[in-house]
């Protein structure tokens, strides 16, 4: 088997395992969706019916829901490996470490995007915003932002998996490192919800894509050290 073939096969095995475990346990996705709905409801009640005010804060609120939900998912992404010392088994696995990373990343992106697909309509209804007309543009921003956030988040989740204070350490490390991704995502979403086309937000999209590429190259390289130390 070629080296690339083996990486793809191992990546797929890891993603399929994570998805199977989640479909049976339903711990991660349920917690993510409940939390996202809670955030949207609470801010909806807090901000009241003022349409202008809602329009101003809506992009930030949407990404607040996305990112906090994603954080919950990331924090639990190595839960199955912590149980029964499965992490040790992964350490003894021959072959590249990148496929473990990419397998975990694919699962994290998948779960976060599943949550986002349910959050977005709820957001549109609660905040009286027409998200459907802008759906392709919003989806593009969501994909770029989610990949950037999850790419470094997966690395940090592995790094903090064995810490007692992992629930605190993960957001402490992750949010400062993803400031460019968060900024780009919120600004691009703001412009799109205000009626701007993709052309108007192209500079933000380039920034997001750039960070995604940098993280996608650097994080797998760092993952081996994280896993072994």
């Amino acid at each position, binding site marked *: 088997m070629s080296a690339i073939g*083996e990486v793809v096969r191992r990546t797929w*095995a890891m993603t399929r*395992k994570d998805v199977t475990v989640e479909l049976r346990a339903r711990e991660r996705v349920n917690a993510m969706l409940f939390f996202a709905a809670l955030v949207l409801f609470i801010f909806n009640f807090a901000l009241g019916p003022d349409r202008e005010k809602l329009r101003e804060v809506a992009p930030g609120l949407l990404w607040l829901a996305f990112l906090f939900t994603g954080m919950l998912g990331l924090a639990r992404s190595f839960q199955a490996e912590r149980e*029964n*010392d499965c992490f040790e*088994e992964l350490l*003894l*696995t021959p072959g590249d470490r990148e496929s473990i990373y990419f397998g975990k990343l694919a699962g994290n992106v998948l779960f976060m995007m599943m949550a986002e697909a349910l959050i977005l309509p709820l957001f549109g209804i609660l905040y009286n915003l027409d998200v459907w007309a802008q759906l392709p543009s919003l989806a593009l921003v969501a994909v770029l932002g989610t990949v950037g956030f999850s790419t470094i988040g997966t690395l940090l989740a592995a790094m903090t998996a064995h810490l007692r204070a992992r629930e605190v350490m993960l957001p402490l490390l992750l949010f400062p490192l993803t400031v460019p991704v968060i900024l780009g995502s919120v600004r691009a979403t703001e412009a799109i919800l205000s009626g701007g086309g993709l052309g108007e937000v192209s500079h933000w999209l380039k920034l997001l894509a750039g960070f995604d590429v940098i993280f996608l190259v650097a994080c797998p390289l760092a993952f081996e050290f994280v896993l*072994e130390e």
Partner: protein
Amino acid sequence: MPDPLVEVQGLTKVFGPTLALDAVDLRVDPGAVVALLGPNGAGKTTLLKLLATAIKPSAGGGRVLGEDLLKGRDRIRRRIGMISHSHHLYDDLTALENLQFAAAMRGMRVTRGAIDKALGEVGLEGQANGKLRTFSTGMKRRLVIGKMLLFAPELLFLDEPHNTLDQAAIALLDGYVASVASRGGAAIVATHNLSRAYGMADHFVLIRDGAVTWRASKDGLTAEMLRELYARHAEGSETVEGRS
């Protein structure tokens, strides 16, 4: 004389301020079953993890299965197996899925027939689709042995393998270890269960405070002598914690 399967010199491991393993030399020949004895925190597990390439040594080196311990880690990992007191299995997967996942991560293609055969050999026939969460501890340990049968490692590392096993599972495990050794492989067992160690091993290495304090072969050594030697050499080291 055949090449040793393990030949390491001066293996040292430091965790922060703690010297976990202090210049350990070890040689394991084909066909040998070596028992690493010692109290909790002596450094037995650390030595196993170093030999299994799960962690890197702070100093020292050598060869495992003819490969350099540092440069040949990937090749070593393809030829070893680890049975630990944790079973390294996923509770929300079935027995079949656990074995398929472990095989895929090792880059192995295994057929359903091979999996069913391995499950049958460990007394888990008909349990392939049983979710691990519903398995008893003994069944999970049997599944680990089944996994080893699939992987067929040449060198087996066992860390307190008899914990929580019933008599039938102990017999199965000991039989499997003996079969690996009889095929020209070897096994290294970390334990502080002296009677089990005496039953399965033919060489004994006592580790105390991270260093080897004595070693002996089974020739002429009775179980009683082993207990006496252990008591003499391990005495007073129970207070050292955190390195096993």
